[in-house]
């Protein structure tokens, strides 16, 4: 049985594919990203690795539909990604979030249901239970009424993951999820990301800490404004390719944030 929309693919026994073909993204005249082609599917945990300005955020935003694609294509489940899709959740860098905004943990998670509820419809029981499940799954049940600045870094990251779960997103795009977290929070977030991918979601995250790559991710995409390599961690995550990605000698051109 194929459900039209469902939460995670693992239980259904089929794979949804994300295909990126010859992706090129330009800001005005600046080429931020080119020659990116890869395909991956639900259940994978993918690390985006590359120096600052390599286009990691650009790639995440392009897949999220936030940036116009100059040429090439992004296909999710065989169809081109439109401006937005409920099945794709984008989680911003923590430093880009206004933590003083007067909103509670459950308030943030509730916004994940807006695509389903629309602009006016009151929340149904279905919505409420999705929100409650998402909050519980991320271990935030006790913190529902807290204002978001009153949380630790790891908890803040989990609030946004909970929103993505409430949204019933298949693809989670995370921009530097581990930045600024302490050791315990990093370890706990790593477990959470593993768990989410094992549930059948596709997790794609930009990542800086080389030591933890093997423990967290299945696949690696090495990026330096062009794709350097993509593949399973065991094949691609090696010194030779990392040197090619990070080597100062290599011409990377001007940095693009």
């Amino acid at each position: 049985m194929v459900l039209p929309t469902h939460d995670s693919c693992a239980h259904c026994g089929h794979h949804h594919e994300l295909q990126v073909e010859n992706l090129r993204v330009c800001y005005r005249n600046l080429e931020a990203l080119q020659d990116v082609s890869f395909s991956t599917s639900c259940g994978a945990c993918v690390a985006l690795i590359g120096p600052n300005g390599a286009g990691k955020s650009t790639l995440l935003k392009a897949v999220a539909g936030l940036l116009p694609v100059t040429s090439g294509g992004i296909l999710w489940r065989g169809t081109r990604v439109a401006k937005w899709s409920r099945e794709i959740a984008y989680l911003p860098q923590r430093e880009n979030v206004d933590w003083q905004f007067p909103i509670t943990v459950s308030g943030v998670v509730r916004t994940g249901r807006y695509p389903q509820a629309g602009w006016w419809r009151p929340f149904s029981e279905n919505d409420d239970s999705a929100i409650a499940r998402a909050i519980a799954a991320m271990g935030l049940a006790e913190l529902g009424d807290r204002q978001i600045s009153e949380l630790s870094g790891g908890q803040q990251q989990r609030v946004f993951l909970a929103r993505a779960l409430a949204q019933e997103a298949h693809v989670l795009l995370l921009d530097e999820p581990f930045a600024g977290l302490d050791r315990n929070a990093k370890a706990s977030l790593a477990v959470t990301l593993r768990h989410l991918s094992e549930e059948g979601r596709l997790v794609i995250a930009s990542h800086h800490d080389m030591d933890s790559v093997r423990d967290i991710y299945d696949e690696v995409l090495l990026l330096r404004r062009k794709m350097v390599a993509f593949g399973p961690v065991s094949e691609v995550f090696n010194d030779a390719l990392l040197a090619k990605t990070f080597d100062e000698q290599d011409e990377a051109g001007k940095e693009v944030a």
Partner: protein
Amino acid sequence: MIDWLVEPLSHPFNQRALLAALLIGCTNGYASAFVVLKKSALKVGSLSHALLPGIAVAILVAGLHDWSAFLGSLFAALLIGLGSLAVSRGSRLDHDSALAILYTAAFSGGIILLRRLGVTQQMEEWLFGNIMGLRNGDLWTNFWISFGALGTLTALHRPLLMTLFDAEVAATLGVPVRALNYLLLAVLIVVLISSLQAVGCMLALGLLVTPAATVYLLTDSTNALFWGGSLLGGLAAVFAVFAGWWLNIEQGPAIVLVLGAVFLLAFIFSPKYGLLAGAHRKGK
């Protein structure tokens, strides 16, 4: 005691002033939540100054009518708002600077023009407001503006909040962020115009920032920010009209002064975000 309330109400101009104060206070208070969350107080302030030259040009072109001032100020604010966007996008200048250049230039032109047009008395009113001078027609204008503004902001509550909290995430959830930002700006301009006659374009900004800014220091709930701001705006405006009558001070500035005083109290005594609470936490 009851006479204090009843006596001012026996004058029709006071009745109108109170009704206007309630309408304007509530609408501005509600809208002020958006200004505070958008962190755009200075931009809105610039636009409020852009209203005056619009009135001047409208009088020059069409003479002094109920609607000429309204339409002129609306047009001028839109022109300067959009013009500043065009200047900042077309040059290396940032938007705030572009806005400052355009509105000060326009404001200066407006002052010079209004003095030549022989409407010095009204000019004072447009600058600082004259809530006692409101006519029934002005009240109706205010009513429709409040109705339209509150209706729009309430109907678009969800997508607007998403946009204000995180525009990028909102876009990934299908919210038309850019269109909503323009719409919000347009609504704020119309709300500014509604308070023009009551508090004038110099003080309109106070009504459109202070209520929600005060509540912001007292709550972490978004809904409380909107309805609290609205309640505070309405109460403060009504109180100031009474106080102005009994103490014989100008009502327009009184409204903004009362709001400022309440803000000061919240700034010092807010149980969570006040100065005293902060000092107490440090002392521990």
